[in-house]
């Protein structure tokens, strides 16, 4: 298969970038999107050009590293798949494929298609710890977890933190990401003691990173490679409201004595 790639090239953060066209002839239909980029990069290196920088790691849709806008769609044309799980047979031969980095004020471009998504890590960090008993390991079945809660928590926990929700949102909102992380602990008994504090901390951090708000466009759940539902956002809002209204001022800095 033959393609023409229209790729965003940017040398460094804060420098102006531009689109450059690269011919990509003779690509196997069974190549993954990232393998196609590898082939193009090999050729660029042979010709003495700078290869296209893109982030990748596991290449099986679980690490959340690969992040690119392919033809105006986060992670490309395959539903429920990260860019690494998209194959070239999903495109027409002869097509001109536009590849762009995530665009968000919170995700500065490091180089070409690589963005700095540590804002998402800082949201998780703002959630803080969960208390766990020290001492000997407890029996796995000692804490009872309702089956439906375990299932829903697992669905939310499948978030790989790729940032596609932010990238696809017209408002650049990280609501689906934050909501998924809050849902996954908020539904489990182990997440209850710090539930309100975690919700307040993560929502505040989400705003501090200058992500936009949620208008319920629904684009995020469509872009999500793990197909996390916007139900999580309704749950986050409910938890946040509850936490804001019932928050008690802290009376001691911790410790018992």
């Amino acid at each position, binding site marked *: 298969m033959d393609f023409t790639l229209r790729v965003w090239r940017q040398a460094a953060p804060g420098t102006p970038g531009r689109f450059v066209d690269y011919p990509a002839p003779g690509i196997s239909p069974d190549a993954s999107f990232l393998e196609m980029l590898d082939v193009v990069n090999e050729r660029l290196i042979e010709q003495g050009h700078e290869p296209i920088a893109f982030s990748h790691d596991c290449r099986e849709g679980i690490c959340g590293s690969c992040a690119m806008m392919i033809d105006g769609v986060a992670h490309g044309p395959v539903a429920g798949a990260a860019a690494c799980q998209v194959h070239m047979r999903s495109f027409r031969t002869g097509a001109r494929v536009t590849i762009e980095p995530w665009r968000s004020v919170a995700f500065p471009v490091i180089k070409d298609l690589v963005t700095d998504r540590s804002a998402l890590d800082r949201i998780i960090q703002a959630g803080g710890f969960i208390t766990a008993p020290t001492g000997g390991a407890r029996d796995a079945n000692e804490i009872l977890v309702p089956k439906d809660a375990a299932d829903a928590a697992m669905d939310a926990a499948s978030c790989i933190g790729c940032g596609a929700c932010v990238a696809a949102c017209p408002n650049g909102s990280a609501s689906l990401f934050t909501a998924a992380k809050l849902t996954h602990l908020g539904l489990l008994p182990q997440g209850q003691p710090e539930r309100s504090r975690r919700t307040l901390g993560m929502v505040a951090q989400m705003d501090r990173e200058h992500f936009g708000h949620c208008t319920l466009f629904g684009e995020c759940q469509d872009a999500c490679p793990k197909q996390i539902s*916007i139900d999580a956002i309704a749950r986050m809002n409910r938890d946040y409201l509850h936490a804001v209204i019932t928050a008690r001022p802290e009376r001691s800095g911790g410790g018992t004595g």
Partner: protein
Amino acid sequence: MWWLSLYRSTIGKKVIMAVTGLVMAGFLVLHMAGNLQAFDGPARINGYSAFLHGTGELLWLVRVVLLVAVALHIDAAIQLTRIARAARPQDYAERRVQVSTIASRSLRWGGVVLAVFIVFHILHMTTGTVHPSFTPGDVYHNLVAGFRVWPVAVFYLVAMAALGLHLYHGVWSSARTLGIVHPNPQPLHRPVAVVVAVVVAAGFALIPIAVLAGWLR
């Protein structure tokens, strides 16, 4: 102050939009139902108007509540629009819309249309400032004479289309913003919002249409 941190957060601003939006939507349902009495003749609707004006302080209480709701709704909308714009300083060269509706994407401009409409509507049907032959108390006459000016009737119909789209997205998303929804395998489906949007927009649009068609004279 818990309410101050709520107001400062994006979720809090959305909550303000949702609560004020639902207050206004509730008013619109009543307003629309009241208007339909015009089809029962001048005596009925003029009597209804006299009854409303007879409630005195209650009428002003409703007016003040609605005015505050509109002001808060617009204030939150402007703040959120600014935050959203700032969240993506460099836009995509290419972005294909996947599932978002025209209603959701037209919410901001539709809101501007509705704000202009509300000001015009009050000057037209409440104070009579821009009405060709406003007669206080004769609501039936004001409706018929007002909508015989066809550009005005068309503007009302355009505004009602914007209102229908605004309600179609707003009623549904308000419930989700407030978190008062049951988990749903099809979260984008919104049967209640469809009914509210169609009934309210069509109910309002019926009167200018009826005047233009000559059913109300």
